[in-house]
């Protein structure tokens, strides 16, 4: 059973959906006019939908971002005009939790990369629940550099709880893999557009999110740590995750305010998975528009603008506080 609170909540809608469907069927088969009953039920349905999903707390958004039916990176990539997947870090392994390759988006050739979680248990095992190993980040580094050489813009989809924290990942220098991936994106001489489509977890997410333009879906989250991890670190109690979620300022609105996210894309009531087709269309449109705006910039302008963008974040001068500076 899912312990996702959004999935739990959706259960209460299932009965109502079944009844509406039955009524429609009956109405079609019989001369009886049941349109008013149907309308009433639908109104009720919309009302419940609003009650359940009208405003979501940060914790609810965390669950929405993790919803098993939420569109994953490949749901976006598969709607490109074309996609040719490239594999491997050339050294050790192909990591299926990062998908990458050449793609064509609205007639524009790009390099596309995304963390990919599974859409069922079996795929989740293969893709390590979307938590990349060092080999995944090394593949991303390789492809980002290739994109620069071939002058292809980079498009990324971010969706991971975080980088894999397992033994072999430590043995293969996970830190180094992420650190070098960050450098590769920082120094890429082509436009980069990143979209946070699900859970943006920590450095493992950021490694694919250094970009000239960052888009975020309304109910996606992007956080310095998972709420569970944060609660464990601060209070040694992972069960206080809901409280941590409230503190972490991990929603799209928060992040736009901080200047970390450039554009928020609205989701249907109840989340992106309730109308995945439109969400994907709208997202790809936004990515394309961002690429179009960036297309005229020279490599030097891009690098300069990207530097200034990240340079600004966290330049902070506290007021009224004296520096700890003792006499020399």
């Amino acid at each position, binding site marked *: 059973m899912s312990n996702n609170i959004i999935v739990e909540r959706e259960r209460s809608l299932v009965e109502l959906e079944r009844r509406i469907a039955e009524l429609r069927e009956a109405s079609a088969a019989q001369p009886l006019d049941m349109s008013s009953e149907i309308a009433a039920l639908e109104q009720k349905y919309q009302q419940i939908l609003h009650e359940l999903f009208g405003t979501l707390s940060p914790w609810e958004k965390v669950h929405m971002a993790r919803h098993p039916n939420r569109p994953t990176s490949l749901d976006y990539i598969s709607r490109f005009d074309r996609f040719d997947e490239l594999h491997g870090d050339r050294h050790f392994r192909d990591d299926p939790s990062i998908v990458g390759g050449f793609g064509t988006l609205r007639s524009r050739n790009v390099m596309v990369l995304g963390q990919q979680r599974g859409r069922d248990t079996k795929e989740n095992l293969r893709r390590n629940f979307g938590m990349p190993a060092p080999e995944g980040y090394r593949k991303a580094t390789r492809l980002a550099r290739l994109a620069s050489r071939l002058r292809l813009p980079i498009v990324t989809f971010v969706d991971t709880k975080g*980088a894999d*924290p*397992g*033994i072999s*990942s*430590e*043995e*293969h*220098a*996970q*830190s*180094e893999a*992420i*650190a*070098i991936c*960050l*450098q590769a994106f*920082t120094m890429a001489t082509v436009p980069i557009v990143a979209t946070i489509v699900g859970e943006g977890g*920590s*450095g493992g997410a*950021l*490694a694919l999110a*250094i970009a000239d333009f960052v888009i975020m879906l309304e109910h996606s989250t*992007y*956080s*310095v*740590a998972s709420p569970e*991890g944060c609660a*464990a*670190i*601060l*209070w040694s109690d992972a069960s206080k995750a809901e*409280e*941590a979620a409230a*503190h*972490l*300022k*991990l929603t799209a609105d*928060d*992040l736009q305010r*901080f200047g*970390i996210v450039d554009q928020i894309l609205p989701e249907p009531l109840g989340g992106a998975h309730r109308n995945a087709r439109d969400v994907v269309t709208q997202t790809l449109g936004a990515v394309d528009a961002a690429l179009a705006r960036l297309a005229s910039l020279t490599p030097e302008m891009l690098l300069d603008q*990207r*530097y200034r963008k*990240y*340079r600004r*974040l*966290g*330049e*902070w*001068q*506290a*007021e009224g*506080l004296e*520096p*700890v*500076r*003792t*006499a*020399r």
Partner: protein
Amino acid sequence: MPRPDWLPARRTKENHVSDEALWSKCPKCGEVLYRRDLAANLFVCTRCGYHFRMRAYDRIASIADGEFTELGADVLPGDPLDWSDRKSYPAKLKTDRERSGLSESVVCGFASVGGHRVGLGVMDFHFRGGTMGQVTGERITLLFEAARRERIPCVIFAASGGARMEEGMLALMQLAKTTAAVSRFMADGNFYLVVLTDPTSGGVSASFAFQADVIVAESKAMIGFAGRRVIEQTIRQRLPDQFQTAEFLLEKGAIDMVVERSDLKDTLVRLLEYADHE
């Protein structure tokens, strides 16, 4: 270890804290060590060789030839997320300021090391577990930018539990910001040397710490991406003691060398010679 004039003054606050600072017990062999002797031995247990975690200014004193000119000391942490749990974030910062005598988890500036002028940044685990907040990132960035203008090498001592929770995504963005500064610095052909000290993990480990030209680690330091506890919870078994030590990483090819603290300054001076084009 010669004690520069400025050091006692910088450590004033620390020394105020309590009398117990006069004595330290070795967590490895249990020996009780007089703090002044310990300092004279670079905070290495005189009995068993255990490397105590060093305070930033002690570290600087042990590495710099003499003078140290601080940079970014007036960039100070705020409370961007308006964070409060058991305690407000400003209150936590205040406690750590008093306890550590530092205004943030890193001290940056310029020093001469064996005659080589370098940008020197030293993280301190005693301030918020060496976590990286906005100001940590800002100071590191200011250092790399200044060193790039001067075309001098940078030496960073890393010690960190990762990105700081209480500054949320603004803390995570410091991985990006420092990476940008480090990358520009390196692209110009400048030399970047890092010393990983106990412990180095999380966001610091996964950004500027592992981007260096040469990665030195202090003997026995714990270094990794994920914390030991996190991994043990994930795999539901105890990890071998050796796992994530500097020595383990050397064998796994992740770092260039493991050095005892007593050899550290000499090693750094030797390494700096190689990048000297005067």
